[in-house]
């Protein structure tokens, strides 16, 4: 509403979105923006649907992102991407990890995992960037690097240099994993559908 940029990170509790939001928060603060990062701890983290809001600009007020406001949604899981599409702004972009994690109604057989999610989003003229982040993370050396693969993808659309991203990655990840994460970032950034 006031020039503030909005990035949402959505996924399943336990998928490691915390590190992604920490990376973004650090990077954007270093760039000199006013930044707010908001997430909910506690019960919702137990395998439930989780959301992190990252907002930056010259002055940020609300800590949350509302429907129709997100410039980017980075979804760690396909169904969660569909769930939060209503938060995407017109001409916004959704980056979706194609990994599927069955929610409880699917596990109990009450419902089926929705098919054709990505096709339906594209039919609605949503800018969808689908990426098999799990395979790329494994290629980089660790399945846990899914979050950094997706951040690498996001980096393509933000005007912040790759060097700055890598500095921020080096500052927040465990030294032992810097190499794996840098590789994951590059794979995410360069991946073509």
């Amino acid at each position: 509403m006031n020039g503030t940029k909005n990035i949402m990170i959505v996924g399943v509790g336990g998928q490691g979105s915390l590190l992604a939001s920490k990376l973004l928060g650090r990077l954007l603060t270093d760039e000199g923006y006013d930044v707010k990062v908001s997430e909910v701890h506690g019960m919702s983290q137990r395998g439930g649907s989780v959301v992190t809001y990252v907002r930056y600009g010259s002055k940020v007020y609300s800590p949350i992102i509302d429907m129709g406001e997100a410039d980017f949604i980075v979804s760690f899981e396909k169904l969660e991407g569909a769930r939060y599409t209503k938060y995407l702004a017109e001409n916004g972009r959704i980056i979706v990890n194609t990994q599927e994690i069955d929610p409880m109604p699917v596990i109990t057989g009450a419902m089926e995992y929705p098919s054709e999610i990505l096709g339906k989003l594209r039919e609605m003229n949503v800018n969808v960037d689908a990426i098999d982040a799990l395979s790329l993370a494994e290629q980089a050396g660790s399945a846990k690097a899914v979050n950094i693969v997706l951040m690498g993808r996001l980096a393509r659309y933000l005007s912040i240099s790759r060097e700055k991203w890598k500095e921020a990655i080096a500052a927040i990840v465990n030294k032992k994993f810097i190499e794996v994460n840098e590789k994951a970032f590059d794979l995410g950034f360069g991946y073509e559908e």
Partner: protein
Amino acid sequence: MKKLLIGNEAVARGLYEGGCRFISSYPGTPSTEITEFAAKNDEIYCEWAPNEKVACEAAFGASLGGVRAACAMKHVGLNVAADPLFTLSYTGVNAGMVICVADDPAMHSSQNEQDSRHYAIAAKVPMLEPADSSEALEFSKRAFLLSEEYDTPVLLRMCTRIAHAQSIVGFSEPLPLPDKKYTKNPEKYIMMPAYAKKRHPFVEKRMNDLRALAETSDFNKEEIHEGAQIGVITSGTAYQYIKEVLGDSASILKIGLVNPLPVERIKNFAKKVKRVIVCEELDGVIETHCRSIGIEVEGKSLFSQIGELSQSSVAASLGIKHQGGYSLDENLPVRPPVMCAGCPHRGMYYTLAKNKVTVIGDIGCYTLGAQAPLCAVDTTLCMGASVSGIHGFNKVQSGEGSGKTVAVIGDSTFIHSGVTGLINISYNNSASTVVILDNSITGMTGHQQNPTTGYNIKGDPATKIDLETLCRAVGINSVRVVDPYDLDECDRVLKEELAKDEPSVIISRRPCVLLKYVKTGDPFVVSGDKCRSCKMCLKLGCPAISMKNGKAHVDPTLCVGCGVCVQLCKFDAIHNSGGSMR
């Protein structure tokens, strides 16, 4: 130094800068990180108390002893600490004392959405409410000066969107520590009728003094915009939504000292605008105050008193069009929180569901056992209510329900307030069976130590309360321990204890699978040719097991090899992928 901090970490820093050197708390979302972050600072003594009442009283003791002290809790925790709070208002403090209370509008992780501001009004103590991390730091620091100047405990009200939102803060120099030796002062510190009667007028005078402060203090701030027709009185996170929606088009009176509220300042503010709107989350506390001083305002007629506000809800309430989003017309499966793969509670809940017992539940991760497919919980009220509740339930069920009901409670919750209920079961003799789900940690709030774990908040070894000995000491003769990964044992012991005509305790013991020291096993796999698609394994509600192409499938990225599902499969279709079980 500028840093991006969650509100709770900013409070921890603010308490430190304010000279706080003693913190006693009980974990509760969204307040937990205040004490966790403070505990990383070696200059502050920090501890997890068994419950909020103990924490608040311990903090009072430290204040009495001459050290600035604090305690932190969630909104429902203040119900537990309400007893000391109301009389602390009378005694006042020696060194400054701050009680941090975090409300949870929208109930992200709570059983109700009560508004803590009512406590400040009822107990007649000042309450501060920050609107971002920077104010969280500043207010918690200045709260100690307020506390000492006005001889009162100070409530600091947080809410989920302030406590768990990160924004930029600047650190500054800590205040000098106070020189407050303890000196005996019976008329101030012994609240028996003769002395308390003398203190009550002091409390009323203090509130008057604080009201005068509210008229001038910079805890309350005015943003006057020339020509603005609308004036909004707001506080906390609601201020942020108002600014987001109205920007500089409205004048604002932002309240930081939410109790007591100013009078003349509100009247003067109202004179400057044509329309006065009060925007606050949960109850209409400021609105009621405005009406009581004769100011015509609009408040809850516009904004809901249910759940959280947001920029879109505030915009809608003000008749401003908010940008819409894409709508995907699809009935998507919900994804509620679930018990983790390998959660030790699952085996016991399966056993309870299988035996069709009525389960009086409690507060913790194990409340999740209420959900499908286990559906194993009948009621959940508040901390400790399972153990107290089953006693009353069984007393009136004479015969019918007896032997078919259990209470379930976690280790931390049992110590918090379950043990008093167990004393009642023993003393007033009901043949109740209490299952203590001992996962050796305070789970839901994110792994805090408690008196049964053998470690303190710093992770150093501490006295470990032995649950078996404790239960026996309060008069329970039948105390059994089972491994919830062993379904046969759980079933046998449950049946035996339910059949007994005396109080009994079953301790279902296995550490939380998410604890770092817990070694998990290799994932199990399903032999497609052996699986008959009977779906027995799905009855566990394990997030790692689902049906794929008509056969059971174990997700290798989630399975931790607990082996509970293996015990349910009649066709030996689920087996080890290699390596040792558990």
